[in-house]
């Protein structure tokens, strides 16, 4: 940066926005995106190449279709988790909130509500649960780890109590088409997930709220001194995570064909894993949306590829865990 300083000051300030823009692009390449942000996309690429060499059906249309469909839920959860982690927090309850939302979908369905209302109920449930946790963390100033760990327990317990442990089979043309149709080989679930990710990319980088999320994660004191309410930001990010859990619940019900109180623990680990792979700083302040989305795709490809190669299911959590710790290590070395 220092070599350009003299030019910078010599240049008349009024010379307009063009040089500013140009510089921001070159800077992005130089410093803004450290390579930890590129770990997920590059890792994804490498993984795809390796699996394709080992098994030529990996990149068949059918398998791509299956992978994308499987990735959609994780993409949504990762976007929610990204907002929370960007403030330096963590949402351990995100998968259980999804389960609770799915069960509430079933409750609405059982009461003969229209599918639209059932979907709404799922999202409202998720957002209210997230909001509640956010208020306790933000206003009550209680550690996120404890609150969301409690939230995990409460949400899965509630899901069991409300459903009485029984799945509710959902038979609906809309839900069937949601899970099986799409545009070409790209199914609706992944289209929904990517559109939501795009919207929240806009929220993170093109709204005041997004800037304040990153500021609160970067330095609470500095953000507070400019008048930003940390409590409000925290409340909001856990609500965002809840909304994502609610949306993911709809896709889950469509995929399974039933609203069931299953544990879904692998989604929790994988959402944190996608965020770590996406180079989001775990202490907060630095985040992107596209990179955790790539992280989610990478994890899905990893699981899918291992299955294709006939590796036992039992090895998959080990592979996921290993990849995540490796990514975290690499990110550490970058500093």
């Amino acid at each position, binding site marked *: *940066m*220092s070599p*350009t*300083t*003299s030019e*910078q*000051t010599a240049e008349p*300030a*009024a010379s*307009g*926005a063009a040089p*500013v*823009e140009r*510089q*921001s692009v070159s*800077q992005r390449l130089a*410093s*803004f995106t450290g390579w930890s942000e590129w770990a997920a996309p590059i890792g994804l690429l490498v993984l795809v190449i390796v699996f394709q060499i080992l098994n030529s059906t990996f990149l068949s249309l059918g398998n791509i279709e299956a992978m994308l469909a499987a990735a959609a839920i994780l993409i949504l959860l990762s976007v929610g988790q990204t907002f929370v982690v960007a403030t330096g927090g963590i949402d351990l309850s995100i998968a259980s909130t999804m389960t609770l939302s799915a069960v509430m979908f079933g409750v609405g369905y059982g009461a003969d509500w229209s599918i639209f209302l059932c979907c709404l109920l799922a999202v409202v449930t998720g957002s209210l649960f997230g909001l509640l946790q956010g208020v306790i963390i933000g206003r009550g100033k209680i550690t996120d780890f404890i609150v969301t760990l409690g939230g995990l327990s409460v949400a899965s317990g509630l899901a069991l109590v409300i459903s009485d442990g029984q799945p509710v089979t959902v038979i609906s043309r809309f839900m069937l088409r949601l899970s099986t149709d799409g545009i070409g080989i790209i199914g609706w679930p992944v289209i929904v997930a990517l559109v939501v990710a795009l919207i929240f990319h*806009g929220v993170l*980088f*093109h*709204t*005041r709220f997004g*800037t*304040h999320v*990153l*500021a609160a*994660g*970067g*330095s609470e*004191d*500095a*953000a*507070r*001194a*400019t*008048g*930003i*309410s940390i409590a409000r930001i925290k409340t909001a990010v856990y609500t965002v995570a809840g909304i994502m859990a609610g949306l993911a619940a709809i896709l889950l019900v469509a995929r399974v064909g039933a609203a069931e109180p299953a544990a879904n623990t692998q989604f929790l680990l994988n959402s944190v894993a996608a965020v770590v792979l996406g180079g989001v*700083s775990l202490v907060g*302040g*630095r985040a992107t949306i596209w990179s955790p989305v790539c992280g989610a795709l990478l994890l899905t490809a990893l699981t899918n590829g291992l299955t294709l190669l006939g590796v036992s299911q039992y090895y998959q959590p080990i592979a996921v865990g290993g990849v995540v710790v490796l990514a975290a290590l690499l990110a550490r070395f970058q500093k």
Partner: protein
Amino acid sequence: MTTPLTKQSTESGSRAVEPLLKVQDVSLSFGSVRALRNVDLQLMPGEITAIVGDNGAGKSTLVRCMSGIHRPSSGTIVFDGAPIDFRSPEDAREAGIETVHQNLALVEDLTVWQNLFLNRELVTKLGPVGILNRRKMKSEAERMVSTLAVNVPAVTSRVRRLSGGQRQAVSICRAAGFSSKLVIMDEPTAALGVQETARVEELIQRLRSEGHAILIISHNFAQVMRLSDQVWVMRAGRCVAGRRTAQTTGEEIVALITGAQAA
């Protein structure tokens, strides 16, 4: 000596000028620690006022009461003719009080322009949603920074990459923008080298000549004597003395701080 003569004359005829800020009988305790005890002092408009005192004397605490971080447990602060009751730093900024905090209140992971406009972002309304006008903020930031005496790298660089002096310049730049009436600086040159200190002092003097009132906390007596028009001395939570800078000496100030001389 750098003080323009006109300043001196407003001072001698200052009976007519209302103080910009009056602290009246302000106290604040943190549990058993009585950080502020019945503090009384005032700031005149268009002047540089300094607060000096030993570590833990309560200077930063007093400043935080003015910038909306703390609320006094008793007493009043009158700003611009009206008593203030700030619930948050946002309120203080609304009222026209900007603060450069002791621990450099910038977000390192954000860029210079993002910091300059933090919580003052420019948005374009698109229905109910405000979309950040990044282009406008960058070019505005470029303009704000280009007026600094300190070279600051491109406004799109992250604050993490800036030196202490450059960060201080950005903090001051932010405080001076947004048409603030009072700029408070808590030890603005504490972490700086000789050259950076000189540059920041230049900046402070320029702010005064532009009509800002400035409150500065400093442990550097030479600096206080160079810059300020008025000095207040704090000791163990009390404001023990006030002097016109032109009518006092460094020795007297030191004696007041240590308690060797009574006010």
